[in-house]
């Protein structure tokens, strides 16, 4: 366990280093002169201003040095200044991250809570017709574009309940009810494809587990069907399920990015799309870097979770 943990930490460090390098390169590799692009078609820009900005961004230094300087700043919490607002990028991201984190976490919770009974129920039905229907339904669920679902929900609500203020963001601490009523539809939109995907994985894993010898043994020694399903089948099926939750976190984020746009939520999605339109590269770079590092950590956390679920993993 100790060695595995150490190796995991090493991999974590390496991947984080790689992610920082790619994030750094993304902005340095912009074709043409990033400074020119940033200043845009502004005719009043003087040569001196261009040089000053280039110096400020460190673009007049050798490549490796640029990266090291940048990395040093990042490690000190300095991710640059937004070109549009003039505020530190970190505080821009901090303000927006709360929305996305709330949306993502709530969607994940809703998705897991719905997918567990749904997947288990799907595994319980084994007749051909029901099987096919559920398989079709879950594939449809997975491929529904979340932004379309969001738009349709918005349309449905505006037709059925015109008084429900569904668009816009209210702070969780100052207006908790308003916050929840505002985030309900976005959560449904982001969670739906995830429910389908998780339920499908759980069903497959449970069907597989049901065929194992230990299930036959458990039944043979007289355990009730309930105990067999919960203690033997479900617990074993949770391993692929948890793996999928890790993969799904990326989908949840992708869903949030577009769904935020539909409901005008001031989250990371809107921040990064706006930043691209404004050519605010420091903001784009920092958002990608920080969000990806969070994903790396989440996935590392899930690896640890395995050990808790499956004793076999502890030895590996």
């Amino acid at each position, binding site marked *: 366990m100790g060695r595995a943990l150490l190796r995991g930490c090493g991999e974590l460090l390496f991947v984080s280093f*790689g992610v920082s390098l790619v994030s750094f390169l993304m902005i340095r590799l912009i074709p043409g002169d990033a400074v020119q692009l940033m200043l845009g078609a502004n005719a009043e820009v003087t040569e001196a201003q261009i040089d000053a900005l280039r110096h400020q961004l460190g673009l007049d230094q050798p490549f490796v040095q640029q990266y090291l300087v940048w990395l040093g700043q990042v490690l000190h919490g300095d991710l640059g200044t937004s070109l549009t607002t003039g505020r530190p990028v970190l505080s821009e991201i901090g303000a927006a991250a709360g929305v996305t984190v709330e949306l993502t976490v709530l969607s994940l919770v809703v998705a897991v809570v719905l997918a567990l009974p749904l997947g288990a129920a799907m595994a319980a039905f084994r007749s051909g017709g029901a099987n096919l229907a559920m398989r079709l339904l879950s594939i449809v669920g997975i491929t529904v574009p979340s932004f379309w679902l969001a738009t349709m929900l918005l349309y449905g609500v505006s037709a059925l309940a015109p008084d429900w203020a569904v668009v816009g963001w209210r702070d969780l601490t100052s207006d908790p009810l308003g916050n929840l009523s505002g985030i309900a539809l976005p959560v449904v939109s982001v969670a739906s494809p995830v429910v389908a995907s998780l339920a499908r994985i759980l069903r497959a894993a449970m069907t597989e587990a049901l065929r194992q010898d230990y299930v036959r043994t458990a039944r043979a020694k007289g355990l009730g069907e309930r105990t067999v399903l919960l203690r033997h089948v479900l617990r074993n099926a949770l391993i692929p399920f948890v793996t999928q939750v890790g993969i799904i976190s990326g989908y949840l984020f992708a869903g949030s990015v577009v769904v935020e746009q539909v409901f005008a939520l001031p989250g990371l999605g809107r921040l990064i799309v706006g930043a691209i339109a404004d050519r605010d590269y420091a903001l784009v770079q920092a958002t990608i870097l920080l969000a990806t590092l969070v994903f790396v950590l989440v996935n590392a956390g899930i690896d640890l979770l395995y050990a808790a679920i499956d004793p076999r993993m502890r030895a590996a």
Partner: protein
Amino acid sequence: MKVIFRLGAGIVVLLALAAVLAPWIAPHGPNEQDVLARLQAPVAAHWLGTDNFGRDVLSRILFGLRTLFAVSATSVLGALLVGGTLGVSAAWLGAWMDRAIMRIVDVMLAFPIILLAIGIIAMLGPGASSAAAAIGIAYVPIFARMLRGPALQLRQMLYVEAARAVGAGTPRILLRYLLPNLASVILVQASLSLSTAILVEASLSFLGLGTQPPTPSLGRMLAESRNFLTLSPWAAIFSGLAILLASLGFNLLGDGLSEQLDPRLRGT
């Protein structure tokens, strides 16, 4: 269950035909405006209604499918070529090459696909070709990882050793022995990847980062029609349904294929 495979193949063939034949079967031009018939519900002249410029929704969807398929197919094909080559080389060359390639793949896989794509579009500027490049690059590590495993197994097969023993060169072994055995993995993965790539392309276009006007694009169509939702929801409803159907078709096809090609999965 052949039903899934047939259903998927049916949808894919139908939509692909619609996309290819769009210039001939579309009742109107994609940018042709009928200003007197704006935001109409489905009628005889406009089967799926019209948008806020009086453009025919059905025709725009047909041409939008063209763009959607062109962008997602280009990106998945590119990702398959580059990623597949990387994965097979890693497995074949082994040792430090394997470690080096797979480390890079690990780093790229750490990025959520949508973020990596957005980052690449930030570099290249919004547009259909940037979206294709962005999605393609984001899918490279997926194909590399997906093909490395089977290639690693095949490399140790007795018939590969036998081929080498009778003097077959590496290119011949790769083409005649490895590729045919990887074909089923490739087909399934390409089909499932197309299903998700379609959603990513539509998302990017929806965000205004993909295909730019006046080229018809389903994601952008949905984004634009949102402003007129209460007046006429038809453009939004049908453009989204078309995206769903396209993604669904490839997903069913991939799912059905994996079952057809892997006898162990039949009947599960």
